[in-house]
């Protein structure tokens, strides 16, 4: 259990002097409502960072504060070594893409992309060349003469992206850019955006509420909730090593089991003691033990392979099985856990190999490293 300050320190230390964007003790209040509480964050040059969280968590507010669109109440923002805390957006250095694309409907694609290039001292032919280059870059070289309404949603968003990077800004801000698109286009565009970002090496912040999007695109993810940063880390860190119950719960599936601490590395769930990942709760403290469904290892009724941690294995019954395409989702119940049900995801292979089916009894093993222990707080999370 770490305090907030420790988190900041870690964040700061992990990206020491080379931070391109530094947010320091930033607060934002809308009247009585505190939308952002003491946010500190550093982002390195060329990094792709996602702000991830449920709606209302403050991620968009943070993005708009960085852009200067909504001024923060307290705290500072520094970009490329320059304090931009109270600069108007026009004096900052960023490009932005909105969920609504915000393409100018009465201008052609070319003119949309060229909007920022005009009267920036560029000669007409140079602008033309740059627009062509940008349209090429986003894969829509032939569409310059069309109007936005004549393009599909995905195409429009690519144009918005081209427009945002037209002036080679130091920072690219993406505000839920893919949310308005249908699922297939969304997945496709994820890769394109990511590839483009890599190619240009542009520092990018993307706001999203879609964890898959964040996990697949970001170099680092900033998980936010109720105006505070819950955790900052790489996608694997966030997924594998959530530091708070909220993160654990918000990203991916998680079994949350009421438990009691039995000292370091030990918890009691139901009427059985388990080895768990390290924790420092005092003996007897009420805690939540959490394990992801896909981390639960099935062993069948007949042990065909050795069980790595016999202390963490127990038998239970499959109450229900649900086929979800690439895996089976099962609901398990065992005497060891009392009434608590456990959800486990088994690969198709495992199911076939172990010949699993509903009502069968199996032995399952919860690897101790994957059994995370969190404080049992009775708050809204």
């Amino acid at each position, binding site marked *: 259990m770490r305090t907030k300050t420790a988190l900041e320190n870690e964040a700061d230390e992990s990206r020491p002097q080379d931070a391109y964007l530094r947010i320091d003790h930033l607060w934002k209040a809308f009247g009585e409502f505190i939308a952002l509480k003491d946010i500190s964050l550093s982002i390195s040059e060329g990094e792709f960072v996602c702000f991830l969280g449920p709606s209302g968590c403050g991620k968009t507010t943070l993005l708009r504060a960085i852009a*200067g669109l909504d001024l923060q109440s307290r705290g500072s923002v520094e970009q490329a070594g320059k304090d931009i805390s109270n600069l*108007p957006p026009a004096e900052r250095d960023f490009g932005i893409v909105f969920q609504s694309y915000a393409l100018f409907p009465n201008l052609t694609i070319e003119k949309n992309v060229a909007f920022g290039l005009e009267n920036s001292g560029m000669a007409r032919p140079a602008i033309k060349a740059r627009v062509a280059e940008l349209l090429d870059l986003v894969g829509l070289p032939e569409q310059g003469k069309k109007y936005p309404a004549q393009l599909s949603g995905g195409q429009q968003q690519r144009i918005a992206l081209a427009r945002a990077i037209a002036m080679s800004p130091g920072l690219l801000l993406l505000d839920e850019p893919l949310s308005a698109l249908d699922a297939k286009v969304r997945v496709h565009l994820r890769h394109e955006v990511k590839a483009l970002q890599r190619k240009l090496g542009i520092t990018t912040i993307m706001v999203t509420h879609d964890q898959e999007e964040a996990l697949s695109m970001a170099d680092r993810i900033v998980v936010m909730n109720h105006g505070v940063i819950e955790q900052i880390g790489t996608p694997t860190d966030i997924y594998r090593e959530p530091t708070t119950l909220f993160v654990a719960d918000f990203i991916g599936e998680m079994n949350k089991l009421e438990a009691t601490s039995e000292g370091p590395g030990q918890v009691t769930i139901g009427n059985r003691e388990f080895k768990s990942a390290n924790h420092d709760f005092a003996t007897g403290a009420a805690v939540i033990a959490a394990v992801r469904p896909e981390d639960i290892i099935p062993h069948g009724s007949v042990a065909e392979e050795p069980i790595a941690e016999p202390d963490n294995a127990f038998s239970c019954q499959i109450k229900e099985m649900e086929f979800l395409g690439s895996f089976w989702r099962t609901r398990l119940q065992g005497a060891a856990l009392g009434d608590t049900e456990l959800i486990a995801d088994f690969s198709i292979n495992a199911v076939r190999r172990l010949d699993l089916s509903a009502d069968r009894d199996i032995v399952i093993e919860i690897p101790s490293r994957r059994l995370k222990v969190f404080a049992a707080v009775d708050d809204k999370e």
Partner: protein
Amino acid sequence: MSVTTSDRLPKGRPLSLKLGRDDLLMRGFILMIALYLIITLALPLYAMLSKAFSTFRFDLSQIELQVSDQEGNFDGTILSAATLNDETGAIGADSMAASSDSRLELTPLFPDFSFRSPVRYKIRGTTADTAYLIGSERITGTEWKEMDSNTFRRVVLRPAQSFGFSNFTTYFSTPSLFRSIENSLFISIVSTIVTVSLAFAFAYALSRSCMRFKGVFRLIAMAPILVPSLLPGIALVYLFGNQGMLKGMMMGESIYGPYGILIGSVFFTFPHALIIITTALAISDARLYEAAIALRASRWKTFWTVTIPGARYGLISAAFVVFNLVITDFGLPKVIGGQYNMLAVDIYKQVIGQQNFEMGAVVSVVLLMPAFIAFAVDRQVQKKQVALLSARSVVFEPKPHKSFDRLCFLYCTLVAVFIIGILGVCQFAALIKFWPYDLSLSLKNYNFDVMDGGGWEAYGNSIKLAILTAIFGTIVVFTGAYMVDKTRGFKSGRNIFQLLAMLPMAIPGMVLGLAYIFFFNDPDNPLNFLYGTMAILVIVTITHFYTVSHLTAVTALKQMDGEFESVAASLKQPFYKLFARVTVPVCMPAILDIGIYLFVNAMTTVSAVVFLYSTDTALASIAVLNMDDAGDIAPAAAMGMMIFYTNAAARILHLAASKGILKRTQAWRLR
């Protein structure tokens, strides 16, 4: 599980934005247009309010008298007029309240006064600027003035100015004035009920039946908007006056009075109600009707359980709009009202007839009340209606139903005949040589130059006013709406602006016009030079019709993506480039709508400009009023119809222009 240091914002000064060039420019614009509204609206209203509380009283304590014996010798006793009055009680307290041109005789102070007696009198003021009159001679100062009793008879006091509520006391104790409130409310309520019912039936027929010629009916129903409100009054004189074509139908009742005002009010408010109710019916959800059919509800029951509740906000809104239009209208009751006094006409009578500005201001304040309430209710209802509008619903498609469609057609035909009839009668009257004695056709009534009212020049002035109002009004209104919608921060400034922009709708034109006299005609006002110019007419017309234009602009702006400004800023482009290249072209349909709205209203308005026009800036609508006033009814009808044709032409031009511009600038709308 999150543990934070604190949930409270740390102490310290909130960050203040470094204002970029755009921010400064936009705030500058807001301030400029807000200042415009303050000067053209808030300050004049303030001037009018203070006028309402400016009172006149006789002050007897400023007068001292001496009376001689029968031989004309004075014994030196100085009498204060106030003390004398306290003793004799000759002049009651209510006689002390006065208006600026009231005069008070002093002889009642001496019960045994006779103008033949040899008694002589001396009089003086107690202060240097006390003034009294001998006949019409004005005497000031503290010098004793001796005179014989026949001259003393001619001594009168002038009232002194002070402040207080006495104008209101006078108003409410004058039955003829007070009665107007009752009359105004009565007429407004009855016309509201009649108009809204008729317009609802018409709108229902348009949206729920499959009758033919819907487009034609809609077009005809909109025609009254193109004429001044007093034109139906003129038509009614020709139809039901003592020499009227259909006089028999009045069955002995006079058209001059409530009947005339009612019929005329229904005519000129009909399109206003129709527009609102049609919109309300259009947003009704077809799924509700399908459900009703599935439940086998009768047509009648469906009407009461689905149609009426769905349109209720529209009906309420229409009712208040009509109420407001009728109670603030001045032209119609002036033409056809006869002896039936209405508030708006009272203002005119007090100011123009009696030069009693203070009482005019008092009536204005009284008229403001119902207008204000109606406006406030309407705003609330409109907000709710918008909420309904944004809900996703399925558009209702009527299915043919023979007898019902025929009934609707019949009804709409009746209404259309009424409307065309009114306009037709005016045109006919305008072409008759000398009704009812010489029915030959002639264009003599178009010879406006020999009539009182301003002649053809007035018509030219009206067109000039309409064009200037349309151009400048649209620029001011749209720019203002844009700035207020898009400026970042500056909340207090924007709120004040919003309030100012909504205010004009609650201010009756007469009141605004009168307020302008008080404000702009004040010699100390540096803007005094505007008085009597075309500029002030343009200003008052823009201000009078500001709210609706502003709302049109705001609605159009709200439909645009709110992030355009952010994008432009991120691209380092100034807001005015975005404004010119994107905002204006995208909003062009709304901008044209504002333009034609201002044009048509500038052509027809009477109330706001009647106090403000001058010889050089006489207007066609005022000419209609004045020619009718002078008894030249046929020329008045002729001029009224000129306004109609001009507005109709402007409308057609607007339609063509809209189409043309849309084709050019809105190519993007076509997929």
